């Protein structure tokens, strides 16, 4: 099972590996994690990154460093997908007027407020 997970992670990694040299830009790590089926928050991604060595200059992550950390994430089933009804609740919570929709401006306001 571990071998299969590792293959999957490697595949996803290689899609973002522009120069085929087993490194990706650190800014793509979030994308890779998410395309493997996880739903981390930005903060969680950053936290994960602290565990992975980032090569300077340029901010590159090597597959060798990424693989073990990501494998553990998948094995531990961290950052599980959010079920649909939970998301629905989330939208409803922001819909103060209970009209069934929220405007773009409102959404932006909420997402950028701390």
């Amino acid at each position: 099972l571990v071998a299969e997970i590792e293959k999957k992670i490697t595949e996803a990694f290689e899609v973002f590996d522009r120069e085929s040299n087993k490194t990706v830009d650190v800014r793509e790590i979030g994308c890779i994690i998410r395309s493997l089926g996880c739903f981390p928050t930005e903060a969680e991604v950053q936290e994960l990154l602290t565990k992975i060595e980032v090569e300077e200059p340029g901010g590159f992550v090597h597959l060798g460093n990424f693989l073990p950390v990501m494998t553990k994430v998948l094995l531990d089933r961290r950052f599980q997908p959010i079920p649909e009804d939970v998301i629905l609740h989330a939208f409803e919570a922001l819909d103060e007027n209970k009209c069934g929709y929220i405007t773009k401006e409102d959404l932006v306001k909420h997402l950028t407020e701390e």
Partner: protein
Amino acid sequence: AFKAAVLIQQWYRRHVARLEMRRRCTWRIFQSIEYSCEQDQIKLHNFFSYLMDQFTPSSSKERDFISRMFISGESYKEAELEKYCDYESIEVPDSYTGPHLSFPLLPDHATALLEAFQQKQQLHARYVLNLLHETRKHLKQLPNISHVSTCYSEEVTVCGDLHGQLDDLFLIFYKNGLPSPSKSYVFNGDFVDRGKQSLEILVILFTFLLIYPKEVHLNRGNHEDHMVNLRYGFTKEVMQKYKVHGKKILRMFQNVFCWLPLATLIDQKVLIIHGGISDTTDLDMLEKVQRDKFISVLRLKKRKETSRKPQIQAINGESESGTDAAGVEAAPRLSLQPQSAQAPSTANRLEFSRWLRQTVQEQIDTCRRLVDISESEPEELTYSSMVSLKDADEPCWTRQEEWKQVLDILWSDPMPQEGCRENKVRGGGCYFGPDVTEKFLDKYSLQFLIRSHECKQEGYEFCHNRKVLTIFSASNYYEIGSNRGAYVKLGPDLIPHFVQYQANKTAHLLTMTQRQGFLESAFRALREKLFAHTSALISAFKSYDRDNTGKITLSNWATAVESVLRLGLPWRMLRPQLVRSTENGMLEYKSWLDDLAMEQRSQEHIQSSLLEVIYRNRSNLETIFRIIDRDHSGLISFEEFQQTWKLFSSHMNIELTDDGINDLVRSIDFNKDGNIDFNEFLEAFRLVKQCP
């Protein structure tokens, strides 16, 4: 509320990431399929090699048929070319409403052409031919490497591949302005094929070339090559648009292409070539080659030496006029096998040696044509001069070396790793690394290279530490929304400034559904490929299913598929789009393959294995048909079709009974007198686009 926002953010980010992943995978799919198509070209050449070296024709008819395949066009000396492709006798009827050209060309002619093409008009064949003759005259005077300078404040605009996409050329002219004494342009090859308006692009480019010869520069690309045109659509386009004079026009294009310069140098500092370089690229050699001798850069590679030795033997055999049959048997198996039906009886020695000489001469001609030398060589090439060109003053370069120089320039790709290796994916040229670039730039005191040849998402891309710039000007190359096109402007400071665009204006505002369409088409292409390899896939799957349960794990599925298709794609990522239903992580592979088969529109009465073979070799078959179809009519006779198929299947080791072939042929509509419209035939095997 905060928590809600965070949740939404999480969910949204994941959604975006997934889309991004899919987009990149789709890109990869198109690229790998495109390149594996070019790999088909290798297979085709292996097929021709096989015919040349190993196949023993069992009848004179077969032998004739094969040699016809190699005679890709009658060779014309220059005067003959002018006579054959003469345009003066062609009348332009009064009913013709398109633009009229007169020479020398003026800027007004260019604008007239641009307007005409915008309104989908067609230029009369007479003017096309006239234009081609004048273009040829002009190109002949140019050196292999054009020199451009950005003196004062002049800028040079460099454009990459256009591939018959006229809309992109219009966009470029609209955004950047037309060529003029104050606006220089370099067009870096691949003007034709794939897109549907290659002809119009060439007419426009050649027109501007003649009006502003100092400001407009064209480089040859790997698609400016009639062998490639046969496969990728230019030949078809010309024949469809010019039914009467198409053949002449094609012949002229073939000649004009080989007179296109090979490279352009800006300020002695920036080299522009279509493909790339190799570790043996030698600009001095390139400057001196006779570029018009390389009519098609694609040709057989192997067995040049061995296939010649027996020829020498045969010639020796012939010069001793009293040679007996033993001398003949030492000859190559291909065609010097005396068939009792053909060869005169050995009793009559004079007759025999005459026959032998004729056959040998035929073989030399075939060899010669194969290597595409001397189609317009003024002097007769003796046998030994085929091997090396010895000129009294020039260094003794062999044709082989010169050929490699040109091939590398037109077909190579950069790679991130150091070194230089054969480009097996395309079947020609090299992959060259940053160290090769460094050395090359150093050797010739250059600042950087500009090349094209590869589609890039943003229309341009740097690599090798910004020493190599790829510029690609055909937007939406794979599909609507696939990529932008770009051109680059260089001033005297030689700092590149880019302008990007996308021909379909709404493309970058693609809705979700439209983007889906792009993704869908990639997967459709992939499913077709999978179908084409059904039997190989079944054996691969079976090897993982020892207990014959009919099921395999998804992990094994991915490994098996990669081992068969060798496309280097992330199968585990793609799996959800390709495999619909799984049970406990196991796949019932037989029914999955059956589902794939059902998607393809098929002729039910043809055996499915045959169908698979046709699918897999479709593009090669098409190319072979076009080669046989020398008058470009789109029709080949039933017999030729059978012959082709027989040869091809014996090479591919396909078991096929005569009944099998007959069934196949019967299912195709016969037009008129036993001729097969192979366009129709091949069309029948194209995927039906699924209705949204």
